[in-house]
């Protein structure tokens, strides 16, 4: 999916309050993998909430595949959201349910209203289960299919969350620090799977991260500081100076890799 922020997109959480995003213009082509870096409070999460219409702009225009999302009706917003996959630092899975059930939920993106109830009552059919198992195998957690989310380690949770994305096959993936606080092996598997989704499925991938090594694996880096874009260019040219500048401006500590 193509994402376009134009006309200087601005967002404030309170009327007259300080802007969380301020005059942002970014164009992202379909299938691109873009890392978004910046200190806490720089506007990364705000940008993501904007794209799922969890927020509306106070200025500028956000369009996805050419359509202004501010003009969408409730049902169109729902359709848009089905095509967007999200993954957070916390994983956002249902604790009391099994890994399998949580991954199966990903198949609901292109299913009818009754499918959710059917899934809740008797689980997914053989087709759904097979595709979920494939995803679990890719992330090396097939043996945990029947474990409850609450029993998993942080890394395993995150892998399960990526499995949900794999069965959902969204057109746009918003990954908010998916590899923060997980073990190395999990981080590698998570990033690998996200990258594969972007490459094979043509999903556009927006990856918010503090980890510069992770960011440099993207095609492009957008650096935010205090709600403004301070760098937008190829990751190969995103030097330590850029990173340091982005973090220094926020009065925050630069990440380890950049110091």
């Amino acid at each position, binding site marked *: 999916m193509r994402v376009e922020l134009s006309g200087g997109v601005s967002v404030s959480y309170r009327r007259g309050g300080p802007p969380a995003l301020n005059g942002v213009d970014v164009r992202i082509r379909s299938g691109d993998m873009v890392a978004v870096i910046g200190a806490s409070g720089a506007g990364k999460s705000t940008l993501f909430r904007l794209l*799922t*219409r*969890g*927020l*509306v702009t106070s200025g500028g225009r956000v369009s996805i595949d050419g359509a202004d999302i*501010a003009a969408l009706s*409730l049902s169109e*917003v*729902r*359709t848009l*959201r*089905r095509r*967007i996959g*999200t993954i*957070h630092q*916390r994983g*956002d*899975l*249902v*604790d*009391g*349910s099994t890994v399998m*059930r949580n991954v199966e*939920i*990903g198949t*609901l*993106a292109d299913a009818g*209203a009754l*499918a*959710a*109830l059917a*899934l*809740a*009552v008797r689980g997914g059919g053989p087709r759904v289960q097979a595709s979920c198992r494939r995803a679990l195998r890719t992330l090396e957690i097939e043996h945990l299919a029947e474990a409850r989310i609450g029993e998993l380690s942080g890394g395993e949770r995150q892998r399960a969350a990526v499995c949900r994305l794999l069965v*959902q096959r969204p057109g746009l993936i918003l990954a908010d620090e998916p590899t923060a606080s997980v073990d190395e092996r999990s981080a590698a598997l998570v990033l690998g799977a996200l990258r594969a989704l972007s490459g094979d499925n043509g999903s556009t991938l927006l990856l918010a991260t503090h980890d510069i090594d992770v960011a440099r694996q993207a095609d492009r880096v957008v650096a935010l500081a205090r709600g403004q874009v301070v760098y937008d260019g190829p990751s190969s040219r995103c030097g330590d100076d850029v990173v340091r500048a982005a973090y220094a401006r926020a009065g925050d500590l630069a990440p380890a890799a950049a110091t």
Partner: protein
Amino acid sequence: MGRLGFGTVLALLVIWSARGTGADPGLLADPAARERTSRFLSGFLHPNLSGSYLAEVANAMLSTFQISIVALVIGIVIAIPLTPFAASNLLVTRTPGLPRWRRAVGALPYQVARNVLNLLRAVPELIWALVFVTAVGLGPFAGALAIGVHAGGLLGKLWAEQIEAVDEGPVEAIRLLGVGRFGLIGLGAWPLARQNILSLTLYQWECNLRAATVVGFVGAGGIGQQLDVSIRLFAYSETATLMLALLVMVFLADSASTLVRRTVR
């Protein structure tokens, strides 16, 4: 308002209420009252433990127990369809950027469900019992209906609050996939709140049991009806037996629900 002023208002409120209720500690010390009280209490020294009477009491206890069970089922049947609409975090119109009228229309089912639950709950079981005794006649079914309707209002509110209290992230993630209200409950809220919902439902059953002992006073069956009769006939040794039986029953119910809670966990 100063602390002194507040204290004065409080004292006036208590005095005014005491006068209104005709509170008079002297009445308790009155010789005639003392005589009546001691006669009532002496019943506890000689509870009626004859076999035939105990059988009668056991019957009344069973009937009370049955009322509490049927009332719980009625309460659950009432609460299930209302709860999904009474939890504010399941409102579809929380999407920002919607026109005001769309938000208001979206919140309508929520308002209706909340108010229905409030109404069911606001009317005490005894009043419902009077209503249902008129409707279906004297007997335990009227009691079960009365307690069940009240329980439905309570359960709906308690369940909805449990659903509102679940971790927002997982539910939001499922909502973003376009899943509606009922799917959100089945896949998100229920697995997350199951424990608490079961526990509250058991507690409601205990409350039903206590209520089932009272509705008998207005003719809606159970052990209360026996109590009412024995007190009216000044048969205090029988009153004593009934109250001891109540004590045993409430204790048993408490143990039973603790046991169930532990096995469900």
